[in-house]
């Protein structure tokens, strides 16, 4: 059998005293889709950063096509045909699709840009990723997150990547974009590309991948062939224990109407009405661009409410700023925790108390702040050695818990969650579901926007489905099916 495309052996990496990888092996064959799994903080990202030349390993070897290589910079990785599609997209918003595709390798005649050739080539690349309806001259900032991701993939393909690393590629994609992506991945596999698929979504991995490698706490647990592999076994390998249940159950405690939304419109949101009860989880489903986040922004005072009425516990509220919304009793866990949820260079403690710093007459109460943070670290099981650690250093799941902690400190009456488990591993997800359940049981009214249908169905009491800014259905979650939600989400009857 031919040498594998990539072979990493005995990789060690430490950051200061923290050992992140301890003797990890990883092998990728040509023409396979290989899932890399593990809880947040298991070392997946570090391993991939080593493969792409962002970090240098402390020890261990890397072979490409059976030849030992040294990859010390992203340029080296590119030379060996290794490309990565990051979870945080690396595109320049103000430049066009074509400009981004050719960034750093522009086509030119004696220094003059050959825009025509680039536009033509860009069109071909976009066709390959099923985005032929996009105009290459469109600026990146006008694209949805999903479309931006397809542009990134197109760029990697254009660079003739033989190894494609995808980090949570479907996190922001709509169903149809996901289908397109999977079709594309299968095509690439046929052509002999090796694909590393980093994801937490089990269903996808079982549908798509040939083999799974699992890391736990920086150690290599094993590689398994997917055919014949049981779901539970993977979970067990990842967490070192069996999880009780993917979606924990909640004791229903639905009480009076807390939030009454009547015919609100603004921006792309058109005439939405619903009631949200104390102790209820109202799921909001819909495709990307259906206006779910926009609706949340209206309620939170981020965008202008053009018409309609919002009543909270019997009092009309029309917050014009987040500050007013917070005072009224809203909390908002945003979709993009790094851009909108956290100040990465501040400590966990400082982030948690950002909405309201424990203080007397403007003077920070350090003791009270530490006590509050310690309590929330306990309650949310945030894994960190020290509350003074910059949140930048935490794993995705723990960062998400910090964002939750930030709002829980305020004891909100209505908590809006926008994709609360995006980029969070199986164990972390279960913990976040558990937190959501506890909050609901305590009587918090929860509006949960999510693109993961199983999550919406399992966690919600009722489901509001949106399509192109309108509410197309309000379903009872018990008895609702994925098909029913999707039908409403696509505007079907």
């Amino acid at each position: 059998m031919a040498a594998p495309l990539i072979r990493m052996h005995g990789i060690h990496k430490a950051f200061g005293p923290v050992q992140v990888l301890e003797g990890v092996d990883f092998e990728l064959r040509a023409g396979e889709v290989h899932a890399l799994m593990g809880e947040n903080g298991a070392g997946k990202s570090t391993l991939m950063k080593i493969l792409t030349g962002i970090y240098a390993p402390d020890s261990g070897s890397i072979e490409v096509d059976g030849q030992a290589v040294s990859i010390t910079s992203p340029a080296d990785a590119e030379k060996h045909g290794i490309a990565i599609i990051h979870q945080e997209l690396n595109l320049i918003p103000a430049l066009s699709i074509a400009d981004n595709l050719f960034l750093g390798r522009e086509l030119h005649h004696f220094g003059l840009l050959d825009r025509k050739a680039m536009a033509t080539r860009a069109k071909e690349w976009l066709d390959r990723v099923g985005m032929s309806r996009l105009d290459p001259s469109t600026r990146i900032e006008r694209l949805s997150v999903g479309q931006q991701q397809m542009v990134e993939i197109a760029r990697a393909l254009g660079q003739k990547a033989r190894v494609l690393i995808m980090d949570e590629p479907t996190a922001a994609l709509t169903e149809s974009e996901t289908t397109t992506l999977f079709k594309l991945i299968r095509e690439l596999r046929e052509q002999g590309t090796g694909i590393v698929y980093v994801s937490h979504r089990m269903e996808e991995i079982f549908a798509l991948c040939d083999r799974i490698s699992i890391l736990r706490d920086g150690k290599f647990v094993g590689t398994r062939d997917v055919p014949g592999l049981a779901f539970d076994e993977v979970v067990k390998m990842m967490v070192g224990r069996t999880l009780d249940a993917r979606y924990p159950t909640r004791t229903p405690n639905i009480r009076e109407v807390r939030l009454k939304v009547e015919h609100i419109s603004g921006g792309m949101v058109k005439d939405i009405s619903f009631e949200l009860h104390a102790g209820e989880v109202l799921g909001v489903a819909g495709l990307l661009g259906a206006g779910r986040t926009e609706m949340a922004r209206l309620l939170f005072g981020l965008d202008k409410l053009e018409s309609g009425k919002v009543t909270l516990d019997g009092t009309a509220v029309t917050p014009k700023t987040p500050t007013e919304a917070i005072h009224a009793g809203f909390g908002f866990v945003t979709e993009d925790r790094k851009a909108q949820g956290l100040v990465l260079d501040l400590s966990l403690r400082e982030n948690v108390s950002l909405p309201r710093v424990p203080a007397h007459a403007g003077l920070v109460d350090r003791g009270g702040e530490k006590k509050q943070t310690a309590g929330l670290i306990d309650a949310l099981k945030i894994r960190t050695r020290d509350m003074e650690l910059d949140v930048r250093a935490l794993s995705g799941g723990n960062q998400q818990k910090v964002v939750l902690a930030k709002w829980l400190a305020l004891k909100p009456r209505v908590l809006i969650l926008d994709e609360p488990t995006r980029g969070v591993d199986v164990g972390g997800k279960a913990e976040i579901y558990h937190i959501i359940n506890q909050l609901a049981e305590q009587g918090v009214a929860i509006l949960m926007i999510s693109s993961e249908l199983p999550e919406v169905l399992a966690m919600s009491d009722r489901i509001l489905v949106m399509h192109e800014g309108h509410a197309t259905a309000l379903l009872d979650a018990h008895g609702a099916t994925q098909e029913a939600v999707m039908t409403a989400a696509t505007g079907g009857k």
Partner: protein
Amino acid sequence: MTLQMNWSRAGTLLQRLGSVIGLLLLFIVLSVMSPDFLTTGNLLTVLRQVSINALIAFGMTFVILAGGIDLSVGAILAFTGAITAGLMASGHGIVLAMGAGLGLGLVLGMVNGVLVSWGKVAPFIATLGTMTLLRGLTLSYTQGSPIPVTDQGFALMGGGYVAHLIPLPVIWMFIAFAVCGFLLRGTVFGRHVVAIGGNEEAARLSGVRVSPMKVAIYGLSGLLSAFAGIVLTSRLYSAQATAGAGYELDAIAAVVLGGTSLAGGRGWLFGTLIGALLIGFLNNGLNLLGVSSFYQQVVKGIVILIAVLLDRRQ
């Protein structure tokens, strides 16, 4: 700081200590090279010279930490100094004159803040505009000639001594340092300054009133500039239209030498004090060593570049 420091914080600390180490090295070198350097008289003179820049740089630290920049500080210093001197020259009392000067500095700074927050003008451009405007206003107010100050009480602000030894401006500098340091580390205001510089969107979504905060931050910078203007006017016994020219750059240099990131969100006030001292002792040392003023600027420029390059390496 506790002993159980994590590695990223330790790295930051090392980075931060860079400026302190630089200052110590400079101290040692100058002590060896010039016998006049390590004398109480010389050291206190340098501290007095540094105080004006330090006062401005403290305000600048808040602005830069919040992700902004304030080019108008030197112009505010000149304008408020002239108004204060003018009021006294026309027979008003020292308290009213100084109050008016400080109040004016605060308001002018707040105007910068309004332009930057509600006006959505880039801080560099907004404060470049107010700087130019205020320079012009100062020239027309003074008609280009100095406004002399005769009030002996006022002259103490910049020229007085405590215990016949420590110049009053040095005292002002340390009081301002203590107050600003507390403001930055001990208050909700300070916390929000750093949060805005670190991630303005996250701060806004967390309910931080970003626009009023910016008005207050630039207001603070204006207030400290006006205070520096009063001290300078007092020390020189007159207000000059061209006073404070280039001070904005010295203040920015002090902040950056101190290890505060120009991108905002990371920095400390102690570093700014060290940065201001570095610049002051460097000037002093070069004078003592008889280096021509032309080359002094060259050396200063090189020091700033090296400091920033070292900062980037870490």
